């Protein structure tokens, strides 16, 4: 119980005296838990449904390692990698979006701003249309392209520090050039190759395996805690550089660290599944509207991102069965509809 009126229910959690202490915003925690629970439900339903129906009880059993034979193969080897990746990558995207929107102080801030998505697509297109290669070659190309682009944008925007607006402008410029390059590469390639490249470019979770899940999971296991550890300096930076530095935040270094983590999160998603659009943009804003909190918060954004992507993947697989849509197409369409509905809903409430 807090003696201060924060305007909303708040609980102070204290252990070992004050050595471990935290101020919990009840509504934020409730929203995070609800979103996570919903994401879990959708994941389970996805695991259960499809050409081969599996009862939910059997799905649970398989996850606990108690199933055998056909059920085990279908749930654990075919479906689990894809669905688990949807949850993990969605959370990563939500986190990355929160970081970029907080840093740029703009609700339209997203990793695309730094040119990453365009660069990743360029790298992948080079591999797909010019060099030729399999999954890991494309992933590597995308990673390289994206990281080089982000680095280039940072360097070009750096002039005694990276001021948010300059970063955005340079990011837009570099993105535009790379997008043009991509359009050109798509035009030059043979039709089938171009279509395959376009499917990658839309972002797709088709053909995910346990191996790919493992790689992504390992990387995210490092990145996500790093990001969460930086959530407080990120919140301080939102007060303006002067105020943040006056309170002991090293503004330039914190910003760079946050940028690197944000880019790394995006890079992991892009390398694994191609550039999945809109989740990084929409998740933080949608989460914010639900929690009613100040600024951009990481955990709610991550939870919302997971829910968005896992739901999108379910639709991508089932909505037009037997055709499987690239999940990126669904996120973009779905995200847009959510946004529009939310705008209308807010308006009516006013």
């Amino acid at each position, binding site marked *: 119980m807090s003696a201060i009126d924060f305007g909303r229910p708040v609980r102070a959690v204290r252990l070992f005296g004050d050595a471990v202490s935290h101020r919990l915003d009840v509504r934020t925690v409730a929203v995070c838990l609800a979103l996570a629970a919903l994401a879990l439900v959708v994941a389970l339903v996805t695991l259960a449904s499809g050409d081969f129906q599996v009862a939910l009880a059997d799905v649970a059993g398989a996850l606990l390692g108690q199933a055998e034979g056909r059920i085990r193969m279908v749930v654990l080897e075919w479906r689990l990698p894809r669905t688990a990746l949807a949850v993990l990558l969605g959370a990563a995207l939500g986190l990355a979006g929160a970081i970029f929107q907080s840093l740029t102080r703009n609700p339209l801030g997203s990793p695309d701003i730094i040119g990453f998505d365009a660069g990743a697509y360029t790298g992948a297109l080079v591999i797909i249309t010019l060099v030729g290669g399999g999954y890991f070659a494309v992933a590597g190309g995308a990673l390289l392209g994206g990281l080089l682009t982000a680095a280039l944008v940072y360097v070009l*925007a750096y002039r005694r520090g990276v001021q948010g607006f300059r970063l955005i402008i340079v990011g837009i*410029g570099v993105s535009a050039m790379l997008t*043009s390059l991509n359009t050109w590469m798509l*035009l030059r390639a043979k039709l089938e190759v171009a*279509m395959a490249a376009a499917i990658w470019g839309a972002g797709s979770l088709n053909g995910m395996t346990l191996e790919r899940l493992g790689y992504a999971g390992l990387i995210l296991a490092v990145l996500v805690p790093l990001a969460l550890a930086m959530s407080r300096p990120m919140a301080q930076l939102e007060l303006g550089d002067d105020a943040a530095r006056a309170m002991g935040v090293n503004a330039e270094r914190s910003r760079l660290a946050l940028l690197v983590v944000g880019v790394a999160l995006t890079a992991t998603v892009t390398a694994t599944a191609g550039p999945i659009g809109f989740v990084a943009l929409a998740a933080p804003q949608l989460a914010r509207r639900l929690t009613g909190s100040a600024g951009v918060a990481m955990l709610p954004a991550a939870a919302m991102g997971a829910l968005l992507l896992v739901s999108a993947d379910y639709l991508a697989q089932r909505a037009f069965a037997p055709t499987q849509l690239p999940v990126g*197409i669904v996120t*973009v369409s779905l995200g847009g509809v959510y946004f*529009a509905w939310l705008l209308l809903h807010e308006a009516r409430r006013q």
Partner: protein
Amino acid sequence: MSAVSATSRDLARQDAKRPGVANSNAARLFWLLVGVAVLLAVLLASIAIGSKDIPIGTVIDALFAYDDSDDHAIVQALRLPRTALGVTVGMALGMAGALIQALTRNPLADPGILGVNAGAAFFVVLAVGLFGITSVGGYVWFAFLGAIVTTLVVYGIGSAGRGGATPVRLTLAGVATAAVLTGISSAISLLDPETFDRMRHWRAGSLVTPGFEALFAVLPFVAVGLAIALLMARPLNAVALGDDLASALGADILRTRIGVVVATTLLAGAATAAAGPIGFVGLMVPHVSRWIVGPDQRWIFAYTAVLAPTLLLASDIVGRVVMRPGELQVGIVTAFVGAPVLILLARRRKVSGL
């Protein structure tokens, strides 16, 4: 108040340093005229240069002493329409960008933010994918219709509720609608190879057009759009100060918003319908104008109207020359010509927002 002090105040005002690199009216007018001269030069170059080398003498003959030779046909039937289209589309895109940046007070805005590009693309995909329309002339009206319908939807969503279409709500509504339409467009085009093929060509944005048909189709809309835009320049100066101050200064916020949205739709819709989606011009040129002349919308509009077609035509010329005997579409080149300039400017000046 003595006469002496009044005069000194007037003198002080004339000499006053104004924002922007060109910081007096005289300087601004001078550079504007320089810009016009450059535009004319680029215009002439666009008629004279192409993927096929045609000597200047022949070009002049083609304009004034036409005979039916191949070279003359190229000049009259290909380069002239293309140049005229370039000027028109460039001006339209630049002005649309200036309008939308002024209205939304968001320097990240480009005409696409009202969903124009996504809407045009969506309707073109429908035309090609569902109705099997294959002629460019057929697309034009679909693209235009798509742009208009989408803008109406975006404005509708953005203006619902109290407060109306504030910059933030318009922007978000535009992003949302564009996203949905892009998603559906991608889905349709990925399902059918021929649709995909046509769309990937359309998306590159090109000024290549047989004859003046497309130009004459969109010219009236561009003209009306430009006229409305000119009327919006002064109200937009007030709007830039924020809604409250703008009303206090007598600007009718609602009428300005509607005027800008209508003008932007006409201009950006016409441009996209005629030439496909050409990005970057509408985003970049108003920025550059603002850095040169400061935040007065009237000067920004004037400079944009001159600089934007220059950028577009210059890009088109580069596209014709750089890959002879083939061509590079203008939509692909504009970013490569414009972005380095934008980045250079962002590095040189203390970058200001809107």
